[in-house]
């Protein structure tokens, strides 16, 4: 699996786990709060109804005339008028009335009531029942239903009549809705994680592609450097060894030392150019764009190359450039570009020939009357360290970096470098803004 995909997948899984954990906590917490709210509300309702029942019974006064069936019917009648749905009324162990779907274990209820009264604080975590004032509240699961049972004992007529009342409340719906929310949260998490995976994959790829390219270029550069260093170092080592070990004539010694000097100079220039190239390939390389007068720029280049041109007896002509022509350029970089192009022209041109510089609104170009570049080499000439004629180029000190540098300078200006060439006629290199 690709590294990018691994990173994206790890992030997505982490996201999924975190969202699941968070949503589970929230849902559970909400569920518990809701259950507590429902329970409290139902207890109040139950208590109110039982108070009303108690009030009615006492108001109507149970007296000794009410016995047996009449007493039972009397209490049932008042209970039915005052109770909630799903309630039951027991006297002793007899069920007087029960309109709930459940039968009630009176003895267990009384046992819980006794326990509740003896232990003032019951730890709800360790038991499934609680005491609210005089009401025992039990939560339990029957089949798939979650049921609250509220139970209390009431006595009338100075304790001569004792009844147990209970009421059930089905809260299964609360659990069902929580489970539904968990499922929904799971589905949403899975979907979101999947989308996150895709998006992360794309984003990481977008970020890493330029880095990859830089990495690739640097590899190439390093490869090129290694190659370029190897040859002169080998020669320098060879000549040094000869001077040290072999008895050679002074003339031969001077020749060897001269070669060593030439190669060292070349290596010095190489490292300088490499550092320059490295700087240009840095993603944080800052290009200082200023409004630069093109004619003035070209004149500066001409002055800088005057010596080199006169040494090779080559004439540099500035063609018709509008003196008002200005462009937003990094002055130093463009000077370097033009110098490189002129140097290339000097190296490929014969004595007495001309090199021309021209510019217009869209571009600056340099044209030489040199030997030209074969058509099949055109696509490679801008690669770092590429030389058309290896042997001749090395002799002249050409390292094959010039056009690569120029191309990079054009890129950092968000422009392009175009080369047109004809063997035997010359080459025109155009920097298009």
């Amino acid at each position, binding site marked *: 699996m690709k590294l990018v995909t691994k990173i994206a*997948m790890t992030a997505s899984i982490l996201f999924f786990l975190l969202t699941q954990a968070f949503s589970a906590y929230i849902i559970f917490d909400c569920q518990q709060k809701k259950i507590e709210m429902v329970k409290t509300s139902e207890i109040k309702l139950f208590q109110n109804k039982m108070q009303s029942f108690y009030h009615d019974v006492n108001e109507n006064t149970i007296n000794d005339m009410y016995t047996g069936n009449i007493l039972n019917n009397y209490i049932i009648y008042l209970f039915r008028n005052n109770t909630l749905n799903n309630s039951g009324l027991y006297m002793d162990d007899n069920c007087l009335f029960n309109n709930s779907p459940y039968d009630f274990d009176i003895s267990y209820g009384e046992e819980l009531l006794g326990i509740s009264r003896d232990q003032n604080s019951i730890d709800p975590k360790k038991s499934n029942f609680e005491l609210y004032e005089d009401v025992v509240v039990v939560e339990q699961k029957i089949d798939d239903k979650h049921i609250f049972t509220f139970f209390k004992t009431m006595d009338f007529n100075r304790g001569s009549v004792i009844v147990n009342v209970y009421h059930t409340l089905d809260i299964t719906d609360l659990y069902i809705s929580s489970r539904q929310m968990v499922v929904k949260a799971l589905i949403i998490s899975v979907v979101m994680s999947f989308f996150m995976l895709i998006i992360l994959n794309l984003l990481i790829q977008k970020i890493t592609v330029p880095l990859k390219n830089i990495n690739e270029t640097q590899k190439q550069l390093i490869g090129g450097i290694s190659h370029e260093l190897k040859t002169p170092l080998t020669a320098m080592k060879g000549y040094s060894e000869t001077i040290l070990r072999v008895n050679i004539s002074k003339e031969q010694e001077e020749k060897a030392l001269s070669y060593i000097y030439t190669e060292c100079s070349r290596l010095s220039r190489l490292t300088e150019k490499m550092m320059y190239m490295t700087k240009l390939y840095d993603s944080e390389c800052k290009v200082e764009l200023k409004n630069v007068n093109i004619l003035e720029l070209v004149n500066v280049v001409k002055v800088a190359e005057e010596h080199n041109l006169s040494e090779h007896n080559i004439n540099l002509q500035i063609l018709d450039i509008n003196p008002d022509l200005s462009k937003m350029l990094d002055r130093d970089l463009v000077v370097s570009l033009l110098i490189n192009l002129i140097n290339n022209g000097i190296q490929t041109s014969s004595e007495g020939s001309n090199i021309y510089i021209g510019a217009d609104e869209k571009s600056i170009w340099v044209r030489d009357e040199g030997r030209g570049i074969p058509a099949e080499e055109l696509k490679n000439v801008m690669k770092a360290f590429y030389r058309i004629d290896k042997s001749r180029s090395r002799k002249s000190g050409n390292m094959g970096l010039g056009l690569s540098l120029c191309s990079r300078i054009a890129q950092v200006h968000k422009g392009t470098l175009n080369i047109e060439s004809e063997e035997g006629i010359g080459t025109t290199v155009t920097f298009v803004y």
Partner: protein
Amino acid sequence: MKKRITVAIITGLIVGLLSGCEKTPDKSIITEKNKDNISNYESGKDTGTPIRELVNAPEHYENKFTSKDGVLTIDTDAEVIVPEVSAVDTIKVSTKDPDQEFIDTITNTFFEGGKCYNGSFYNVPTKSELEEKLTYLKKCKAEGNMDPYDYGLDSDGNASYNIDATISALEESISNAPESVEKKEVIPAFDLPEYYGEDEKNDINKDYISVAVEMDDDLYSYTVQRDSDFMQLFQVEIKRENNEYRDDTVEMNEWIGARYFLEDNETDNDLYITEDQLKANTNISYEDAKMLADSKIQSLGLEGMGIVDWDYVMFYTGNNGVTADNVKAYAYQFQYTRTISGFPITYTMNYGGCVEDMESTTVPWGYEVCDIIVSKNGVEQFTLLDPYIIGDVQTENVKLMNFDEIVSIYEEMMEISNSSIGEYESKRIYYITRIKLGYTRIYDPKSDNKSGVLVPVWDFFGGIHAESKDGYISNDNGIDSQQSFMTINAVDGTIIDRGLGY
């Protein structure tokens, strides 16, 4: 990597699902109700002694009680009716499903030789019917009668009936109404297509059968309904569309019991009639009418069905109650209930199927009702509600409480249950004219709303004279009343709420 992913997903699922868990108690304070324990009665022996003797029930019972504040009077002067048997059992009963076989039996019983048409299409008003109604409404409007059906005013004082809206709706309907009645012959069954309009796709009605039957120059409506979301049902209604005396320009076109209008019944009516007049007006003898009714009911195959009560009925049309001018026809109404081993189910006007309150989610079950109205024209109306399947004996020869005990419960509880009437009434007199021992069905809807038990109960039938504090007086002397004011379980003396069924 795959393993890690799997572990991560499973962990996530476990974390989520654990939110549903809670602690499990060791012991249960409540358990599911045992459906068979709806009533645990003591079984006795059949000694051959009539029940009346066993429970010491007199032939007639009289007592008058007035409360201390003088508001409530319970005047019991009642015939005590006890079946002539020596023992009674409690019997299991359950709901009868409206299967096709039974529907076919009903169809064949009442409509052999008749042609059945899909009522949804048959009853779509034709152009001429709508035009007739439109003409009538326009005439009423022209005459200044903006409330031809006497709907009156609503709580805000505005007219309840909007004649202009009705006229525009009719005018719009006429354009799409069929020229003639659309007759689609069908076999009465569920899942018949239901008409939704000319341009709309017809739906299938799964729970309601509506059929129009043409037979012997008569037209009948025949409907069968089964379970709804609120109540389990099995209801059959057959009505003769007695067009010779229907008046669709008025709100009421129905049969009403004649007992309230008998001269010796001291109710406040605009019509008083004698029994001789009723007999003469029916133009069919009681015996002939009964014979026809019996033959129809017996054909239905409902085991043990027999006439438990009957009354004269009058067909009236109008908006303001029964008057001498708006009674159009006379007939007999026969009420049938089951009799099992000589012990009948008691018939009352309370059809049951009530719930404790508006928020109840219980699906209730009404009582079995079987009524038929027979006139000189034949069967005018047949109603069958929630028929039972009679099951096994639950408790044999149940031991019944003594009549004296029952009566003392009745008298005490009548006083207790009417203890708050003084808030709104200055006077209330109960006239108890009949005390009857018979079966009623009790059930526990929370544990099982499709089965119950027939238990012997005492019912106290009668009428009320009530005077409200704002001057309104209602009067019913309770003669031939089918309203039971108290139902007491003859075995254990508990009060049964007939509306709730327990």
